[in-house]
C-alpha cells in the first residue's frame, strides 16, 4: 500500500511537473539527442561529459530557454556499438532531434553518411573524423574544437617555444595502436621535416593496460620529449611507465584525454609536471560553471554527483552544449522557429568569437571551417589542478589544413 501511495504521489508529481513545464515555456521545444556510451568503453569519460551537457541545458531551461524555446534531451545508451547507435539515431530523428552527439568515434563514423543525407547536425567534439572540419564536404558535421591534428601541432609548438626548441631533438610518440592513436602521425612527420627533429612512434596494443614492452623500447630511444596518445585506462599506465623508465614528468605531454582522475590513479605527486593539451578550461572558476552551481547544482537539479562539477570532462560537455545553444539562438534569431537541422547548421556557421564567457578559447565557425581555428592551450598538473601554462593559441594550421583537405578529398572521391 505504501509503495502504491508513493507511486501515486510520483504520478501526481510528474503531472504537476508537466503542467508547470508547459506554463513556463510556451514555445515548442528544441530536441537534442545525446546518444552516448554509458556502459562499455568510454563510460568514465562520457558520464562526466554528459553530466556537464545536461547541467548546462538545465541552466538554459531554468533561465528562459533559447529565445523562449526549452531544450529537450533524448539520452540513450549506445554501448559504443554502431548498430545500436544507428538505431538510437533513427529513433531520435523521428522524434524530431535536430542535433546528435554520439561522443564515440566508431558510431559517429558510421553515422556520417546518414546525417549528411538526413540534414541533422552532428557534433563531434574531440572525437570522430578530423577531416570533418572541411565544412564544404561535411556540411552537417561539426568538430567545433581542436582536432587531434591541431592538438599534436600545438604540443609540438609548445616544445618549440617553451622547452628549448624542436631542432635536433628526439621526440617519441607513444600511442595506442588504433586509428585514433595513429592519427597525429602525418602532421608530426611533416613537422619533423620542417623543424628538423627526429620522430619515432611506438604503438602499444589496445586497450593499453599492459605497455611495459613498449616503454623499454622508448627508453632505449632516449627521447627528449614524449607525447602520449591514448584514452581511458591506458593513459595512466602510460604516465606510470614513462616515469618508471626514467622520463621526467616535465617532458611528458599528452593528448586532451588526461584528467584529474588519471592523476589520482597514478597517485601521490608522481604526475606533477606532466603537461596536456587543453581545449576547455577546467575547474569551477569560469562564469558558466559558477552559474550552473547557483542555478542547477545548489537547488538540487544537477544530473549527477556535485563533485564532478568543474572536472575536465564535465567542462568539455558544458562547452559543447554552450556552442550548440549559441548556434540554436543565432539560428532562431535569423531564420525564426521552428529550428530545423539546416537552419541549426547555418546557426553554427554564424558563430563568431564565442568563448562561453571564458570557458573556452574564442571559436569562430564558418561554412568552410567547422573546426573553429584549432585553438587550445597547454596545462600542467601541479598536484591539485591543471594549471594553464600558455594562453589560448593555435599552431601550424596550414599543416593541419593540408591533412584536412587531403582526407576530405578522399571522402569525396570515395562516394
Amino acid at each position: 500500500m505504501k509503495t502504491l501511495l508513493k507511486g501515486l504521489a510520483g504520478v501526481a508529481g510528474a503531472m504537476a511537473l508537466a503542467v508547470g513545464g508547459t506554463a513556463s515555456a510556451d514555445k515548442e521545444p528544441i530536441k537534442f539527442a545525446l546518444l552516448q556510451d554509458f556502459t562499455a568503453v568510454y563510460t568514465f569519460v562520457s558520464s562526466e561529459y554528459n553530466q556537464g551537457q545536461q547541467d548546462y541545458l538545465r541552466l538554459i531551461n531554468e533561465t528562459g530557454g533559447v529565445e523562449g524555446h526549452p531544450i529537450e534531451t533524448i539520452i540513450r545508451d549506445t554501448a559504443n556499438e554502431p548498430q545500436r547507435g544507428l538505431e538510437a539515431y533513427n529513433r531520435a530523428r523521428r522524434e524530431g532531434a535536430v542535433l546528435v552527439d554520439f561522443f564515440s568515434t566508431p558510431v559517429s563514423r558510421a553515422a556520417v553518411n546518414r546525417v549528411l543525407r538526413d540534414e541533422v547536425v552532428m557534433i563531434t567534439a574531440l572525437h570522430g573524423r578530423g577531416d570533418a572540419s572541411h565544412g564544404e564536404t561535411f556540411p552537417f558535421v561539426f568538430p567545433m574544437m581542436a582536432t587531434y591534428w591541431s592538438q599534436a601541432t600545438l604540443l609540438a609548438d609548445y616544445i618549440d617555444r617553451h622547452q628549448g626548441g624542436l631542432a635536433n631533438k628526439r621526440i617519441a610518440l607513444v600511442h595506442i595502436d588504433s586509428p585514433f592513436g595513429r592519427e597525429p602521425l602525418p602532421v608530426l612527420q611533416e613537422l619533423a621535416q620542417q623543424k628538423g627533429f627526429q620522430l619515432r612512434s611506438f604503438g602499444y596494443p589496445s586497450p593499453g593496460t599492459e605497455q611495459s614492452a613498449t616503454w623499454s623500447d622508448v627508453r632505449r630511444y632516449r627521447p627528449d620529449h614524449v607525447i602520449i596518445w591514448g584514452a581511458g585506462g591506458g593513459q595512466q599506465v602510460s604516465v606510470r611507465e614513462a616515469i618508471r623508465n626514467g622520463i621526467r614528468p616535465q617532458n611528458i605531454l599528452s593528448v586532451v584525454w588526461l584528467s584529474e582522475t588519471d592523476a589520482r590513479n597514478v597517485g601521490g605527486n608522481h604526475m606533477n609536471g606532466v603537461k596536456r593539451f587543453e581545449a576547455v578550461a577546467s575547474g569551477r572558476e569560469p562564469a558558466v560553471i559558477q552559474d550552473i552551481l547557483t542555478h542547477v547544482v545548489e537547488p538540487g537539479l544537477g544530473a549527477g554527483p556535485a563533485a564532478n562539477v568543474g572536472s575536465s570532462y564535465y567542462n568539455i560537455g558544458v562547452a559543447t552544449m554552450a556552442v550548440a545553444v549559441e548556434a540554436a539562438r543565432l539560428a532562431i534569431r535569423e531564420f525564426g522557429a521552428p529550428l530545423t537541422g539546416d537552419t541549426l547548421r547555418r546557426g553554427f556557421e554564424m558563430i563568431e568569437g564565442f568563448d562561453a564567457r571564458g570557458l573556452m578559447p574564442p571559436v569562430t565557425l564558418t561554412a568552410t571551417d567547422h573546426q573553429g581555428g584549432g585553438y587550445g592551450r597547454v596545462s600542467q598538473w601541479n598536484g591539485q589542478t591543471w594549471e594553464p601554462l600558455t594562453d589560448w593559441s593555435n599552431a601550424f594550421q596550414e599543416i593541419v589544413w593540408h591533412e584536412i583537405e587531403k582526407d576530405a578529398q578522399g571522402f569525396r572521391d570515395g562516394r
Partner: protein
Amino acid sequence: MFYRLSGIHHTRYESARALWPVTADRRIVQGLLLLAVAAPFLLSDLYLTSYMLPWLIWTAAALSLTLLMGVAGQLHFGFAAVMAIGAYTSIHLTRAGVPFELALLGAGLMAALIGCLFGAAALRVKGLYLVMATLAMQYLVEWTIINVPAISGGAQATLSTPDVTFLFIPLQSDGALYYTALLWTVVVTLLIMNIKRSSFGRALVAVRDKDFAASVIGVNPLKYKLLAFFASSFLGGVTGAVLAFCYYQAVTPEQFGFNVSIQLVAMVLVGGLGSVIGAYLGAGFVLLLPIVLTNLLAFVAQFDLIPISFNLLSHIPLMVYGALIIGVILFEPLGLAKIYDNIRKYFLVWPFRHTQS
C-alpha cells in the same frame, strides 16, 4: 492437432526428404516469408532499417558461423575478422570498378582463402586450442587492417561504400537494401538446410562427433574440416560485404572488433548450436534485445516514478540482459531453438500429453 501428421504419407524419397515435410511447418514458413517480403510496406522506416535489416544480416552471419561451430564442431572466435575481410575486399573491388555482384564473390573467396589458412590450424588442434588459433586470426586481421592504410583507408580509417547496383537495381533506397539483405539471408538459410541433409553435412557431423571414427568409416577429416572452414568463411565474407553495403555504408575496423566475434558466438550458442531457426532467434536475442530493453526502460523512466540516477538507469538493461541469458541457458541449455522445438512438439500431439521425437 496444429501440426497435423495424419494423411501425410511419404511414398517417395523426395517427399520424405523435403525441407518441410509437415504441411503446418511449410505454411508457417510461407507466411513468414510473405511477411518478410511485405515488411517494407508494413513497417515504418525506423523498424525496417534499424531492426529488420540488421537482424537479417546478422542472422546470415550467425548461420555461416553455425555451419562451422554447430554442424562441423570447429570453434571459431574470430568470425568478425572473416566478415571484415569480406567487407574490405568488396569495397576495394567495387572502388576498382568491379561490378558489385562479382565483388561479392570476390569478398567470399578472399575470406574463404584467409579463413582456410587459419582453419588449417584445426587440422592439428581441437577445442580450446582451436579457440586460441582463431583468436589469433581476429587480432592479426584487425592489426593488418589498422596498420596498412591502403586497406583501412588512410588516417581516418573509414571507407565509404561506393554507389553500386545489384542485379540492375541501384542500392540506394531502404527497400533495395532490405531486399538485397533478405535475398542473401534466404539463400544462406536454404543452403545451410540443404547442407544439413546432404552427404556433405553428414560428413561434417561425423567429423564433429569423433574425427578418427569418421576417418575409420571413410570420411577424410582433413578434407572436411578444411571444406567446413572454406564454406563457412565464404558465407561469412559475403555477409560481411552485405553488412558493409546494405547496413553500415561506411566501414571502420571497430565494426569488426573482438566483441563482435563474441556476439556472433553468443548468437549461435543462445540460439542453439547447429540450428537454423536458432540462428534467427539467437541473432534477434543478442542484437535486438539490448536495444528493446534500453528503449523500454527509457519509456518507463520518463514518468519519473522512481528517482534513480541516469548512470544506474543505463546499466539496468545490461543486468536484465545478463539475467535473461543465464535464464535461457539454465532453462534450456540447448538454446532458443530447443525451446521452439519443445513448443512445436507439444502442439504436434496436442491435446494429448506424450510427444514423439
